[in-house]
Structure formats: C-alpha cells, structure tokens
C-alpha cells in the first residue's frame, strides 16, 4: 500500500461521525442536521476540514461578507457546475467551521476523499480568519461589510481588523476579489502579498441622495476623516474619496454599467473586464443581486470560465428564498420576506421549517390587484411543512382570515394560530410577542410589504434591501 493511498484512520472516523450523526439527527427530525455532525466530526479529527479541503484538486473559493454570500456562492457554484466541475458547497447556509466540516464530510467518501473538483465555501464573518487558515483558499471573494443593526458598536471594526490580519498571511498565488465600492474592504485589502482585483459599479443612475439612516457615517480608515461620495449606490457602497488624505475608490477590474432595474422581478447590467463585455440579464431583482452577480461572474472569469456560460447560468439563476429584509425594531430583529406565489412561499416556509421555526411568525395576506385578487393560491402552498413546530403563527391583512384557515387545514394546532386585526392595528402587538433581543418573521404579500415598509419608515426604521 502506497503512502498516498493509506487510510487516514482518524480522518475516516471523523468523516464517518459527521455522516452518521448527520443522518441520525435528520432521522430524529431535529433541524436540518447541518452543524451538529460537524461538531462531532471535529471532536474526533480537529483537522478534518484542513485535510478534506486539501484534497480538492482545483482549489477552494471562500465567499464572505455581511450580505449576499449565500446567493453569491450559489451563483458561483451553479456556474462551475455548468462548466462540468464537481462542486463541493456548503449549500445549507451552515457557514461556521463545523457546518463547513459537516458539508465536506457529507460530500466525501468514507475514507475521506472529497467527491469534488472545486469547493465554494460560504463563511461567516467572525469565523472567516479560522476558515481561511484551514482551507487555504485559491480565491477569496469579499462582498461587503455592513454594520448589522444588532451589532454592538465597534464590532464591525474588530471584524475588519481581524480580516486584515488574516489577509497579511496570504501568499502571492492567492487572489482577493474585492467589492471596491465598499471603502472598508478597499482599505483593508491594500498593500498585500496576495493579488487583489476589484469589482464594482460605474453607473450614474439609481443613485442615493444621502447615506441611508441605518448607515453610520462612513469614515476613512486611513485618517478618520469623513468620506465624500460622488456616487452612492446602496447603503455605504459607492464611489468615494477622502478629501483629507486622498484615499479613494481604486480603479475597478470588473465594472458594471448600464444597470436596469425591473421592480421586484429582474435586473440587467453590462460587466466590463479587460477587453471583454458581458451582458447579464438576471431573473432576480435589485441592485443587491446585481452586486452578487458581478462578484460571482468576476470569480468565474478569474477561474477561466467562458463569458457565455457565465451569462447563461446567471440568467437562469433563481433566488432560493425570495426577497429578504432584516430590520431591528424595538430591540427585536424582524426578518421580512416577501411572499407572492406558491413557489416562493414554499421556499420561504422551507427555510423556516429547516431552522425549526422557533420564533413567532406573522403572515400578512392582502388581495389587492398587485397581490392577485384571488387568494386560492394559498391552497397550493405547502404550509404542511410548518406542522411540526410549536411556535405561534399570527395572521393579518385583508385576507388574513383565509391564511388562518389554511394553517388550520395544514394540521397546525389551533392553539398556535392567532388571527390579528389589520396590520396598522396589530403590528406592535406582534412585536410585543417577541422577547427583547429575539427575532420574528414577517411574511407579507406585495402590498402588505409596502404597507409594512411605510409603517417602519414612519417609525424611523430603514431596512437594508439585501438578500441574506
């Protein structure tokens, strides 16, 4: 037996533990069985992730950022799969070391050989330095650094500092692909041994007049003076300059222009790179998804994938979870997800069911023209997947009563079903049911979403319109 094929007993045991406990947990029906098996696997073989990822032939791509990393890594994985690569990907959104370990164990043979040519790894921001140290990435894709509204003041700076320390360990053969529109990311990726390329938007439409209320004033990381934006696209992302020290947005290697937003449905853009032009037409909405697509396309181009295949894959890409917004209100985190058709509603409910749905949920169903006047579609939604939970589910909206009946016939215990009055009169009541520091879900139809957004704006709350 040659040395290279000798069985690593400890690694195999770790993989087995990861696989078996994942199955057992799934069989017990407790959550998706994503993170706990990785925890057990890591106890048996602490280097399981290092060892498994080291065997992936075409390298690892780590995707990090406060927002959009799930979408972006799914986009990139899809492109690479279309390019006939076998991709290992922590798809379930489990992005701590143990979750990633579990994903790798599940996608490896019992002897510890990963079944993949390349890995796309989505990483949590705090776990990022540890993930980078363990997986030795070929490319690091940095999307953005937002101040999560629940974060204590200063946590973002701590993360940026830790990331900088991590980048200083990188070698010249490693590539950082960075959102240049994010001044913090641009600043912490300057002057490194690793290569750096930047992506961003070069566009004079869809500009914001001022920084959104939720965004703290953006300061220059070099000298501390306020940054001046000549263009602001989204939150703190834009074209900026520091009048005090001259720090400014670096030239873009991948520049998106001609952006066309089509409401809640789609967005198209033109991506310029070197001499080539890539026209992208996405079937998912928003500038936030434009950023996600630019990032995924940039990484794919850097890996040598052809532009036509990239455009084709991104054009066919569908959002898994629909539109998701997170806001902090009265010390609670509200996760707001638009529901507008059975397929989208199904995906949202699957997301909630996989998480075990332990937090209260409020479903707001309207039947105005933009929602569809017929609420029959609620009966085509697989509401049954919520039946195993125990958390309360509130209903509101013009046709909230229909939703309450739908919940009942899905087998959800009537003790869990709480019909509320019109949203304007019941929103605060719903928030009251969430413990301080806790979270709740709100699932509105389109016009209910608009109403909710108006109500929140009236209360001084602004959501970041990003998909997480």
């Amino acid at each position: 037996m040659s040395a290279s094929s000798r069985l690593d007993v400890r690694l195999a045991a770790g993989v087995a533990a990861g696989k078996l406990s994942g199955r057992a947990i799934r069989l017990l029906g407790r959550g998706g069985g994503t993170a706990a098996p990785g925890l057990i696997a890591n106890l048996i073989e602490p280097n399981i992730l290092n060892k498994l990822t080291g065997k992936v032939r075409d390298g690892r791509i780590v995707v990090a950022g406060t927002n959009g990393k799930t979408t972006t890594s799914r986009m990139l994985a899809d492109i690479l799969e279309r390019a006939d690569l076998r991709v290992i990907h922590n798809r379930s959104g489990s992005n701590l070391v143990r979750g990633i370990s579990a994903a790798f164990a599940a996608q490896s043979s019992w002897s510890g050989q990963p079944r993949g040519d390349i890995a796309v790894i989505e990483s949590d921001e705090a776990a990022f330095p540890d993930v980078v140290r363990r997986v030795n990435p070929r490319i690091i894709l940095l999307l953005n650094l937002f101040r999560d509204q629940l974060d204590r003041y200063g946590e973002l700076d701590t993360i940026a500092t830790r990331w900088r320390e991590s980048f200083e360990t990188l070698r010249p053969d490693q590539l950082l692909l960075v959102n240049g529109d994010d001044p913090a990311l641009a600043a912490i990726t300057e002057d490194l041994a690793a290569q750096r390329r930047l992506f961003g938007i070069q566009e004079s439409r869809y500009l914001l007049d001022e920084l959104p209320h939720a965004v703290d004033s953006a300061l220059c990381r070099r000298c501390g003076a306020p940054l001046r934006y000549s263009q602001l696209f989204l939150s703190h992302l834009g074209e900026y300059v520091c009048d005090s020290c001259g720090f400014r947005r670096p030239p873009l290697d991948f520049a998106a222009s001609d952006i066309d937003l089509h409401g809640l449905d789609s967005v198209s853009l033109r991506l310029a790179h070197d001499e080539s032009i890539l026209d992208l037409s996405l079937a998912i909405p928003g500038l936030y998804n434009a950023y996600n697509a630019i990032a995924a396309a940039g990484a794919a181009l850097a890996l040598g994938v052809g532009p036509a295949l990239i455009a084709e894959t991104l054009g066919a890409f569908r959002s898994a979870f629909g539109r998701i917004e997170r806001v902090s209100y009265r010390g609670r985190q509200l996760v707001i997800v638009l529901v507008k058709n059975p397929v989208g509603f199904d995906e949202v409910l699957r997301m909630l069911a996989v998480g075990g749905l332990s937090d209260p949920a409020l479903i707001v169903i309207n039947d105005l023209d933009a929602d569809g006047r017929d609420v029959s579609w609620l009966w085509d939604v697989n509401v049954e997947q919520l039946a195993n939970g125990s958390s309360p589910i509130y209903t509101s909206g013009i046709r909230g009563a229909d939703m309450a009946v739908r919940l009942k016939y899905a087998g959800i215990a009537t003790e869990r079903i709480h019909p509320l009055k019109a949203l304007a009169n019941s929103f605060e009541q719903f928030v009251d049911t969430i413990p301080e520091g806790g979270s709740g879900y709100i699932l509105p139809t389109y016009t209910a979403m608009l109403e909710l957004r108006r109500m929140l704006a009236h209360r001084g709350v602004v959501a970041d319109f990003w998909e997480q």
Partner: protein
Amino acid sequence: MKLSICWLYGSSMNIYGDRGNVLSLAQRCRWRGIEAEIVQLGLGDPLDQGAHDIYFWGGGQDREQINVSADVQGAKGDALKAEIEDGAPLLSVCGGYQLLGHYYRPADGADLPGIGLFDATTTAGNERFIGNIVVESREFGELVGFENHSGLTHLGSNAEPLGKVRVGRGNNGVDGTEGCRYRNAIGCYMHGALLPKNPKLSDFLIRAALRRRYSLDVLPALDDSLETTAHASAVGRALARR
C-alpha cells in the same frame, strides 16, 4: 371507520387551489376520528364502483380538458353516474362541473362531450368572469368563493341550480343562477378553495358518505370559528369590491 376520497384527474385538473377542497374533506374526517384516504384517479385509471365514498373533480386548462373529456366517456363515466345514482356525494368545480354536463362547446373545434350527469350545457364565452362570488343557497345558506371562467353554462329544464348569485356572475352572468345540484352531487364555479370557507358544504358531503357507507346519520360538530371568520371576511370583501 374510514372514508375514501376519490380525486378525479387531480394531476391534470388542479388549478386555483382546488386541492384545498380535498384537504378540507380529509381533515374534517380526521378531526372526527374518521380515517380519510385520498385516492387520485387519473387518465386511464378505471373507476371501481363502491370503492370510494366522496368524489372531487376540479378545474383545469382547456388543453387538459380535451384528454379528460375523452377519458371519461364510456365505462368510467357510466360508473361515476351509477355511483351518484347510488347516493355517492360529489363536488365538482369549473372544468369538472362542465364535463359533468352534456357538453362543452369551445370557441373553435369540436364539442367536448360530457357525461350528462347534470342537465346542463356550456359554451365558451368572450368575457372572463373573474372575482369574488357570493351565492344564496336554499339548502346550504350563504356560500362564498372566487370565480374565474369564460364558459357560459345553461341549465336544462330538469336541472336545479345550487343557488342564486348575490355577488358575481355565476353560471352565465345572465340568469342569476350558480352551479347545479343532483342527488348528492354539486357542480359550481366557486374556487377559493370552496370547502374550507364553507364547512357546511364539506360536512354535507361527509355526512352523505357516512350515510351511504355506514348507514350513519350523525356528524359531531367541530369548532368552526376560524372558518366562520374567513367566510364572513370573504363575503365582506365581495360586497366591498362589487
């Protein structure tokens, strides 16, 4: 105790949430301790007389309707008619309702023959009737649903309508009738889904099935407060948007 719910052409004819009707029947059985089995009967599947207790037939797209019309001719349609004559309960909505009449006449092309259970004929119209519908039924009281059809159904002299239209268009938008009744069979244009918001109708079908299968004429009451609220809110919506 067990009831078999036969869902006719469920895979090809299931639009506008019609499966909610099947869910309503099954759950209202289960909540009373009656086992409920849902059996889908599709194209080419034979209908065994006496094997099922409640029939449901929903709406579909025109394209599907052609195949289904052909499939239900002959032995299958005869068996279904014999079941209804024997007292079996049935609910049909939209496309299913149309094919239980004598024929459906499309704008162009040949007539699609039905099985003539209802003395009714349907002709394709130029206008699509879309909206909330409220019907006053002598037997079941106020019924509420959502109609979405362009077929114009006219009842023959022997046919009894399900009720009178209070809001909406109903069978043809002219004579004020909606749906059709024959023995324990009901045809109508009400999606919504219909049964969850009209539990009286659901229980009528279950009761008829219990009577036929088990000679049982009692049905324990359920707490229908959520259903009653939804019914009232849908009626309010229909009146407001009229």
